[in-house]
């Protein structure tokens, strides 16, 4: 299962088309997403926006990392916020993409590798 934390329904629709065939679960806010994560069977990948309804994506990431069962879940940040180049390394995520410059192949490669 891939968890997608995205509160723009236009993007939600885009992910549904691009990642057709994958099992996806969409969440508008991080609290609901973390509550839905099964510790015995955590998501194979989390696609995380930064500006979410409620706590930001970074707060969600910190919360996830505080649980040993979720610590190793691969996370990819996909956001329209301009992020520094070292963001992936700094936050321990597999990749960080800017919605304005990302290519569908970038995301498909990550999904192919982890999910």
């Amino acid at each position: 299962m891939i968890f997608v934390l995205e509160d723009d329904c236009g993007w939600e629709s885009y992910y549904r088309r691009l990642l057709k065939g994958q099992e996806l679960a969409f969440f508008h806010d991080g609290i609901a997403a973390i509550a839905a994560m099964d510790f015995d069977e955590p998501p194979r990948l989390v696609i995380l926006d930064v500006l979410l309804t409620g706590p930001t994506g970074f707060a969600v990431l910190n919360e996830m990392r505080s649980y040993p069962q979720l610590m190793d879940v691969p996370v990819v940040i996909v956001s329209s916020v301009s992020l520094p180049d070292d963001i992936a390394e700094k936050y321990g995520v597999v990749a960080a993409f800017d919605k304005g410059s990302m290519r569908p192949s970038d995301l498909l490669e990550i999904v192919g590798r982890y999910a």
Partner: protein
Amino acid sequence: MESEVVVAHELKAPLSLMRQLALSLDYEESLEGAREVGKQIVATSDRAIRQVNDLTKIARLDEALFEMEPVNPRAVCDEVVNELWQWFKFNRRELSIDYRNKRRLAVANTQLLHSVVYNFCLNAMNYGGEELPSEIAVYDRGAKIRIEVRDFGPTIPTKIWREIKDGFVKKPVATPMRPGSSGLGLYIASRFSSYMHSDFGLIRHRDGTSFYIDLPVSGQLSFL
């Protein structure tokens, strides 16, 4: 956050989405699928163009170019739904209208009122869901006609609520609990409402917010 940054961020969202959708055409396996993506690109660009047009209109409000006239609120709401139904469909949402008003005309400017209702609906779509359809309600309140759109989003921050209650949102601001609608839509709606001397407000619910505009009834009879 500076209001310019808020506006830029809000305008970047549809542009980024259009780019992604266009690039994703390479991955569509059928002509039918490609056509669907094409329609979504058009619907997304229509939304972006409307936002830019509304911002342009705000800059021209001081020139008093928008005349007040007798307007049929039902016709305006029908137009908005016709314009947005496809956008709602792409986003797996529903939009309906509940007319509970008498067939009276209101005093407003058709273009500006259209934008106000449009922005209310976009906001409701962002904070709706597949099981939470958005609805425009039109009903009479004495000598006023109210157009109200309910959403199911997080509670509006008190600062924004106070500004709306005072009758005016001064500038587009980021609303930390509602990043999906950075306040630009509310700002546009409040500026246009103020120009039309109509009452713009909100009702806070436990599970969302209803935004409304109260329009004075026109003395002219409706022939519709």
